[in-house]
């Protein structure tokens, strides 16, 4: 029987939520790693029982956990993240140069084909890869050593590599996104990288159209069209149709185009979801109304989705890695909030129900569609 597993990372632990394909009754397991910040939990597309979790703490540093049974049991694996070669410097908030320093792993991206291979996006921005199921990690240092590196700068959350997108049709191609540097593409499995930010425009940097320096918040791709990427930038919702060579704005009629999360419908490549947030200084929904916006036209024309979502006095945030979709026949959409709710829709966003309401602040949500 098919079903869904929702992997939730929070400020105080990880939770695993499961349901059958009806998605009406949910079993909640957790907290795993209670008291620790869990930035991300991700499952392998090649083995749905293989999960990885980034466990971190301001006191005790970075740990990495692996489960081989779908999240019932976990074991700590390797946590030695060392920069390869010259550490170098990047721009600090005040414009001075500062050495790269490893702080934590924000995002895990398991290989599409090998359960033992997983990528990790770190703060300060760097990309690591393990090919032995998380026991050892090696930096793909061509990214951090890119000639534009000294111009990268931290966003409010730190200088993090928060998004990794693997091209399902070209095994050498991947995209990463860094706050605040922008999008980078590799066509040689992560050895060398090219900034692909043409068309982005950002306030707060000396040259708003610069090659790097953009605070990209997240990216989304539909696997059937790997050259089309959707982006939620600090401000602006953007789209590329040529694998990042050029971007154009698709914010259209959104009430505000600030936000963090973005995702694409599992079966409709032109259907996109965002959660508009009031502004860069007001990280909560506009007018206290939590609304997902859906475009069925690949952008520009957006409709608010409100059924089942609080429409008054709601001042939570939805962070960048906190939205995901399942691939059941009727596409499920999920997002978590800093208020501890995880909302689910089993009808492509038409209506929403909270799976859980009172978790710690949600940092990430991923979904596995189970066979």
């Amino acid at each position, binding site marked *: 029987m098919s079903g869904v597993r929702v992997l939730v990372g929070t400020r105080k632990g990880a939770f695993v939520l499961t349901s059958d394909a009806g998605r009406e009754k949910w079993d909640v397991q957790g907290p795993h790693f*209670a*008291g*620790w910040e869990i930035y991300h939990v991700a499952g392998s597309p090649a083995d749905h029982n293989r999960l990885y979790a980034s466990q971190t*703490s*301001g*006191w*005790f*540093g*970075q*740990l990495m956990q692996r489960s081989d049974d779908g999240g019932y049991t976990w074991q*700590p694996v390797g*946590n*030695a993240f*060392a920069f390869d070669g010259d550490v170098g410097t990047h721009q600090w908030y005040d414009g001075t140069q500062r050495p790269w320093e490893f702080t934590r792993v924000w995002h895990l991206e398991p290989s599409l084909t090998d359960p033992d291979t997983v990528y990790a996006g770190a703060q300060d921005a760097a990309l690591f890869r393990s090919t032995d199921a998380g026991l050892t990690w090696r930096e793909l240092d061509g990214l951090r050593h890119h000639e534009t590196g000294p111009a990268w700068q931290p966003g409010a959350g730190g200088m993090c590599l928060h998004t990794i997108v693997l091209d399902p049709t070209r095994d050498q191609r991947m995209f990463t996104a860094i706050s605040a540097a922008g999008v980078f593409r590799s066509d040689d499995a992560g050895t060398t990288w090219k900034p692909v930010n043409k068309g982005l425009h950002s306030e707060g940097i000396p040259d708003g159209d610069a090659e790097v320096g953009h605070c990209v918040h997240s990216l989304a791709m539909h696997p059937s069209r790997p050259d089309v990427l959707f982006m939620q930038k600090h401000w602006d919702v953007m789209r590329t149709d040529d694998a990042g060579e050029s971007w154009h704005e698709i914010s259209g009629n959104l009430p505000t185009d600030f936000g963090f999360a973005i995702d694409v419908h599992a079966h409709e490549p032109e259907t996109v979801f965002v959660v508009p947030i009031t502004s860069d200084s007001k990280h909560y929904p506009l007018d206290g109304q939590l609304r997902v916006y859906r475009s069925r036209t690949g952008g520009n024309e957006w409709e608010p989705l409100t059924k089942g979502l609080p429409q008054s006095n709601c001042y939570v945030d939805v962070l960048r890695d906190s939205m995901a979709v399942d691939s059941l026949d009727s596409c499920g959409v999920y997002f978590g909030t800093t208020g501890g709710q995880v909302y689910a829709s089993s009808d492509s966003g038409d209506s929403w129900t909270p799976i859980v309401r009172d978790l710690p602040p949600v940092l990430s949500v991923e979904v596995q569609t189970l066979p």
Partner: protein
Amino acid sequence: MIRVVLPSHLRTLAGIDGEVHLDVDSEVTQRTVLDALECRFPMLRGTVRDQVTKQRRPFVRLFACEQDLSHESPDTALPDAVAAGVEPLLIVGAMAGG
């Protein structure tokens, strides 16, 4: 026998209750005790000190015999009472919210 008291999170991570008892063959210093601790509990590597630099993590403190030893050299001998197992080495998470 060296006695070490870990903070709650690290006891959970290591899967233990109460104190850790370690044998240290060489001079008893922060470095040799932490080496022995990490050898016995590999999952603690990187949690008390950085794996690459071996520097104590900024929000971790080391106390013993009512003294703050956090800023002592890692190669300085620990107090005799710690080396004799009379007093424990306390590994403490800095008191800072959370």
